[in-house]
């Protein structure tokens, strides 16, 4: 079995995986970081979104071996100890989550969006969230959360 090495949330990790092992399986099953979720099998829902080398990627659409040497950030890598990341705080403050299942992917996408655009319009936020499906919130409060989170990340 191939060995794969990468950096996850700032820590060097490696493990033996099958070629067919997906990045999300490596994260959930080998590293036991279960915050990253699997909500579909067609790369549509975005529950599995993580950052790979600073950009959003769907970890269900990437083999673990493809992430060899990469720098990966998952939802567990955002908060600083007990202090929530400004985007996490904004989701809490605006009721941007209900069941919590899409939330990790949604937050990771939102952080990336805000990194690229400090002051996104509602339209830009809605377009930027196209790769993430939420069934609970109707997106209303997620859009508010992302706007506030982006402001607070910039400030």
């Amino acid at each position, binding site marked *: 079995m191939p060995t794969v090495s990468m950096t996850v949330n700032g820590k060097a990790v490696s493990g033996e995986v099958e070629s067919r092992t997906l990045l999300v399986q490596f994260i959930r099953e080998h590293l036991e970081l279960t*915050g990253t979720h*699997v*909500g579909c099998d067609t790369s549509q829902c975005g529950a599995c979104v993580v950052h790979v080398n600073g950009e959003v990627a769907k970890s269900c659409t990437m083999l673990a071996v493809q992430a060899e040497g990469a720098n990966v950030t998952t939802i*567990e890598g955002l908060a600083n100890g007990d202090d929530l990341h400004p985007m996490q705080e904004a989701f809490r403050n605006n*009721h941007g989550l209900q*069941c919590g*299942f899409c939330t990790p992917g949604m937050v990771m996408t939102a952080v990336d969006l805000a990194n690229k655009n400090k002051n996104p319009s509602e339209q830009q936020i*809605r377009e930027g969230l196209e790769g993430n499906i*939420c069934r609970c919130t109707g997106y209303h409060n997620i859009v508010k959360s992302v706007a506030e989170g982006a402001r607070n990340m910039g400030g």
Partner: protein
Amino acid sequence: MPDGATNTGIGASVKRVEDKRFLTGKGNYVDDINRPGQTYAYILRSPHAHAKINSIDTSAAKSASGVVAVFTGEDMQVGSIPCGWQVDSADGTPMREPGHPALAQGKVRYVGDQVAIVIADTLDQAKDAAEKINVDYTPLKAVVDLRDALADTTLVHDEIETNISYDWAIGDKAEVDAVFDGAAHVTKMDIVNNRLIPNAMEPRAAIGDFDRASGEYTLYTTTQNPHVIRLLMGAFVLSIPEHKLRVVAPDVGGGFGSKIFHYAEEAITTWAAGQIARPIKWTAERSESFITDAHGRDHLSHAELALDANGKFLGLRVETAANMGAYLSTFASAVPTYLHATLLAGVYTTPVIYCNIKAVFTNTVPVDAYRGAGRPEASYLLERLVDRAARETGLDQVDIRRRNFIPSDAFPYQTPVALAYDSGDYEATLSSALKLAEVDGFAARKAEAAGRGKKRGLGYSTYIEACGVAPSAVAGALGARAGLYESAEVRVHPTGSVTVFTGSHSHGQGHETTFAQLVSDQLGIPIENVDISHGDTGKVQFGMGTYGSRSLAVGGEAIVKATDKIISKAKKIAAHVLEASAEDIEFAGGNFTVAGTDRSMAFGEVALTAYVPHNFPHEELEPGLDETAFYDPANFTFPGGCHICEVEVDPDTGTVEVVSFTAVDDVGRVINPMIVEGQVHGGVAQGIGQALLEGCSYDEDGQLLTGSFMDYAMPRAHNLPSFKVATEETLCAHNSLGVKGCGEVGAIGSPPAVINAVVDALADMGVTDVAMPATPQTVWRAIQTAKS
């Protein structure tokens, strides 16, 4: 009465206590759980909608690498998966309820029906081995379309000799027919309520576990009601007594009804865990969810509304065929009858109503409750019919509704279809929505849109629903096979912190916050001192679970009752210590005070006295401070309101855009406005999804054509506007909190508002109806049909 000091009381938008774990990836969903020695299951499913199983050869799979066991229906001889409601035909014929095996017994009846379970050390091995199972099928003709099924030429279940489970009716047909004969105007419509796939974002999962030493089974499962699963699976399917079966529903990633039901995989993994004495984990892949989660809606109706010359409704008659799918799922039989037909009065004074329901088997996934369950079908039918009646009679859309509203001074109001509404003010929600939606400026907006080549339309829905299910005696009379109360235990710890055990499971609704607000408010203690425990039959005394917007109106009331008992006992303890009579003790702000004095004990001191009973009224009371209550509601609750949708249609492509959506709902007293608004947003989004995007489609052989998120279109952020949401309160008259329920109003009220808006936009082109989902091709077709 928002709590000014801490701002955590009733009426305050308290931030959710559950959020931190979800936001940091620390949620604990079933698939996140791993048990020592765990194996993995893959379930082999039928590729045919209808077929006879001649033989199953599992030998190659059994000897494949890593495989622990393979079981088929021949191995798993257990009870049938039960339906929770018995609905008999109008002529007295008992509901036809064919066997519903967990693993197929000689026949498969829908694509996705369970055929075998393969258990291996890893999931890859289980899935690889499943490919080595050879099932010899004789495919049979499938019956997929409701109309075809009604003809009874192809039968889903040979043994019942028909596809009709029941042919039920409510109302006096002769009386209604007579009213129609004398009516000034009759509006007639054929109405389809499109079949939906719930698609909670967390796929279903189950872990079966068996402890050989104690003989105890544990099932971790994605359910909205762990005690109900324990009851149905333990008592009916696997014959495991309750004290040997624990069901745990940890964090659950959305349900919307689809996780109420007892599913085969729960029984299969639990049973098989006993066979191999190792834990077994099964997690649905999304493509598997599409063909196994119970679908929703799927009604075919013909409806007629009789009006007098003044636009007053005289009578309503409805014939509905409701698709049950291949088997009767847990709530399925109640949905088109008690949750649909009984809502057909809506918010109107229609004096006589007749409704006939035929529940029909087809070779498709079982159909059951999905957010709103029956009530969206009723509101859609009624509000489309009212919209059409207004257009036919030349009445204004708002005017025709006002002419027929049940007036606010008419409550309690007995409808002709069994329900008695306790409170409501439909004019209040309507007039509030008219303002919020800025209806006065619509004509100008329509003209502006026309300049851009767009057709703009405005659609209304004034709806009602019944929730807070349910008074057990009423439900029992209607065929429910269980009580529908809720239970709560309020356990005060010796130093005054509190754990509340509730049977209402939370899977997104924020119970851990709202319930804590209730108890904190009632006991006058900080919200941080209250924990809410739910979802584990090993911890929670009993519960009927979360569905039908019942958590606050039923579960919350049980908590209030248990807390009342705590206060009552605590007063007696305080009276003893303070050397006063219990009647003289006043409880406020977390302190027990002798009336008219400054002699007082804090709640925590009373708690400590209860557990360290050195100075305690032993002759009168037992030590401890821990109370349980069961609450059985006196009636359903009746939230209602007005939804107004504004759309723009591109007449060249048929594309519809929702440009504005307003919802003003009366959900009774609001405990946490932030959470209530969130529930409305989510419900409206699902309603707009039903109206514009979502439609489950099968081919004639029973293969699902919309089996992925690419083909089954759910709303994305870009497909929805920000919503305008407000509430108008009339209090529920029969519970102490005055609450009605808010989980389903969005999904119930919104679809007719959207379609009425699309029809309004295209009315001047001659369009009178557009089917759901109003996709570009459907709208385009409607325009072309109107033109020709």
